């Protein structure tokens, strides 16, 4: 089994639910001219949380979005899938 499958299985066994990041599909860039962009940060929560706080949002902060948007424009499709994050 590969790493990401092990990770996903552990998360699912724990009954954790991912809060998806809005407006961006990565949380890390190697900041090269053709950057590699990955999601390496996650937020997980529980069913109880979702019922108590149904409107929970995970948002990237605006200032770095601008910085990364520039990076995105020059990005070639280097990474199509999720990579393991540690």
């Amino acid at each position: 089994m590969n790493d990401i499958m092990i990770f996903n299985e552990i998360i699912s066994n724990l009954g954790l639910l991912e809060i998806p990041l809005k407006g961006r599909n990565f949380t890390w860039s190697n900041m090269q001219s053709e950057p590699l962009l990955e999601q390496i940060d996650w937020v997980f929560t529980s069913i109880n949380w979702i019922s108590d706080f149904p409107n929970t949002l995970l948002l990237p902060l605006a200032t770095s979005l601008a910085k990364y948007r520039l990076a995105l424009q020059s990005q070639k499709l280097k990474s199509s899938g999720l990579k393991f994050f540690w």
Partner: protein
Amino acid sequence: MDNIINANSRDTSRSWNILNWNIRGLNSEDKCNAIKEKIEESACSIFCIQETKREHFDHSYIKKLAPKRFNKFAYSPSEGASGGILISWNSSVFTGEVGQINKFALTVKFTSTHNGQIWTLTSVYGPCNGPARDEFVEWLNNLQIDAADN
């Protein structure tokens, strides 16, 4: 990376923010200033930092990092220059009770001073290589979460 979690409670329609940032070392004044700026920008009540790369925190250091309202904190020390987690909060919004602390995770149980609602925050840092990574996977695999917890 810096992210905000915005939780909007159904029963009170009161919303609050958590700022989360893997800072990769709190070793310069620039980083401290950047955090202060992000705290203001996010209008957060709680902030979490991973990879502090610091073995110790005290109130005077927190004051350098954050506005005065962040008067409580808990941390998991770095091991040398690796890892380290900090959570700090505004005690007029939440009271916090520090739970589990280890090198991968720091848990704080929060109670809203507004409505008494209780929930648990765990900030996790997973090392990306070496034996620490295997140790982390094992820790995660053995983790138990109380089903009654929020």
